[in-house]
């Protein structure tokens, strides 16, 4: 079904997509003329497929559950923010805070992602085929940020238990973020993610980064780290 944002209001389209009946066979939708509108496909609940033909504004696919959403264009700030499950694919580039606080599901950005990609992520898998901006995975709690390109400054600052995998160069690591051994278990886990998402990459080519866990409890000896 085609949903044209030149002809229908955003509220009308989001409401329709948030309440697709399980009894109806039509579970595949195309959104035409997004023209950078904000909050397109925010709050979807069910396992439907949506293809957005063009660029979107802020918070596209925000808090997504179950739905598979593909954006054939670039996305603004906070794509798939706080996503719970499902899959979001961005064919272009993403602005800042992509996948922020995401709890689950997969966000695949085929281009680059700007600063703070994966900030405070809580279990989501984020795969960036290009490079990421500064302060990515800031205070990241859980999940995997996988970067096929390079990472800008202060990667993984104040990271908790999330894992970062980078194939390219890392400009600098943030506080309490260190390079960790890429062992067989990590290679297996990463290859499984690639296989599940149909991405042809070799996990052995990646370096792994995570928390040194030195700042988990405030100690005066660590004060210079802040």
């Amino acid at each position, binding site marked *: 079904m085609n949903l044209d944002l030149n002809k229908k209001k955003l*509220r009308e389209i989001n409401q329709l997509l948030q309440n697709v009946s399980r009894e109806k066979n039509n579970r595949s939708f195309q959104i035409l003329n997004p023209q950078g509108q904000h909050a397109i496909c925010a709050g979807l609940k069910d396992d439907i497929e949506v293809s957005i033909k063009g660029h979107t504004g802020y918070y596209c696919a925000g808090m997504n559950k179950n739905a598979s959403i593909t954006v054939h264009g670039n996305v603004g700030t906070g794509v798939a923010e706080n996503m719970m499950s499902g899959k979001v694919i961005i064919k272009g580039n993403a602005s800042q805070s992509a996948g922020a606080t995401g709890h689950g599901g997969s966000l695949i950005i085929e281009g680059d992602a700007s600063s703070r990609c994966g900030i405070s992520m809580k279990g989501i898998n984020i795969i960036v085929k290009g490079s990421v901006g500064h302060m990515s995975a800031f205070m990241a709690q859980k999940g995997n940020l996988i970067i096929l390109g390079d990472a800008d400054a202060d990667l993984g600052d104040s990271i908790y238990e999330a894992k970062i995998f980078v194939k390219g160069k890392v400009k600098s690591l943030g506080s309490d973020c260190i390079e960790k051994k890429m062992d067989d278990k990590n290679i297996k886990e990463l290859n499984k993610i690639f296989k599940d998402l149909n991405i042809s990459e070799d996990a052995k080519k990646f370096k792994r980064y995570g928390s040194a866990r030195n700042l988990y409890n405030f100690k005066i000896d660590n004060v210079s780290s802040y």
Partner: protein
Amino acid sequence: MKKDLKEFKTFPSSTIKEIQRAAKEGIYQIRGLGAKRKVPDFDDLVFLGASMSRYPLEGYREKCNTSVILGDRFAKNPIKLDIPITIAGMSFGALGANAKEALGRGASAMGTSTTTGDGGMTKEERGSSKYLVYQLLPSRYGMNPDDLRKADAIEIVVGQGAKPGGGGMLLGQKINKRVAGMRTLPEGIDQRSACRHPDWTGPDDLEIKIQELREITNWEKPIYIKVGAARPYYDTTLAVKAGADVVVLDGMQGGTAATQDVFIEHVGIPTLGALRESVDALKELNMHRKVQLIVSGGIRTGADVAKAIAMGADAVSIGSAAMMALNCNADLYRKDYEKLGTEPGYCHHCHTGKCPVGVATQDPILEKRLNPIEGGKRLKNYLSTLTLELQTLARANGKSDVRNLEPEDLAALTVEAAAMARVPLAGTDWIPGLKK
């Protein structure tokens, strides 16, 4: 103190003690609750009452409406509260599950709302709360769209009166398995909640964030914006511009679960001055009573509630006082207070997780000291008392609806309070700072 000894005004014994503690430990003090310093407050105002030119209502006979509708600017389902006194956001984690349930029970019995906090929504508080406001905080701990839709309103927390510009802090000793699970973090580590939101940075972005939240919740829920009292005139203006249905303004006397003492005592402005600035902004925008204003930070009595409403608030919110109704700082379990190095009436050790009365703790033994049903009854009684006091004062000023109270009903007892509240110094027509 001996009469012939003269204490340093610049270095009183308490200051010397703190310098020597800092010299020994090399780190600031962290504590809970709000400012302990004296600041101008609602006690510095009085109501004038009725007189020859003002006709009072009969105290026990004539009706005085206390209900208030919150969030009817854009939301499809605004909240109608029976009383204009709400329960402020306090996290599960900072408080135990029994305390959260007791708050829900007490608030619901009085037809008012309670609020989640930095840690997500528990089933206990949702189950016990007739009206539950769900906070969207920078950390987004426990945030999910299902709970968002279960809420009766959404409160975007920009700041908090105890620490405008500061993030949350929950020390490792309070992080048990359940709290850690809700926050997606390991047990026992210090949880530093961010001070900035992860996906918006200013009022223009916030407007778009609000649009997203409304889209997710079918434009049903009132959206509150909570700000600490830093620059209330501008913050209120920007909150209105961003599309808030309700502004929540938290003055510097507001409490916290844990923050640096220097932050609590030295950042932000008193509720009294902040409230007046916020009302000024709403009036200039012609949005007073259209965007509702909830004020918090040091509300203790029905007189405080009445004065806040007279100055222009639509409702108030209580946090520390609600905890005290649940027995915070009660003269019980004295030995446990002593173990913390304090005593009833002085305790601010919420951050330790060793709350002697079972309110601000995750310790299962301590938590049993608070029965949620009995706690709920105490909170209901306290809210009932505040409401009766509020109505008494409103009737005495000739008002059949508490929101008809107005600045003209007030006088100030100090020059500072007159300037901050912009009401005349008692016995004069002088309002400092206003040109005649």
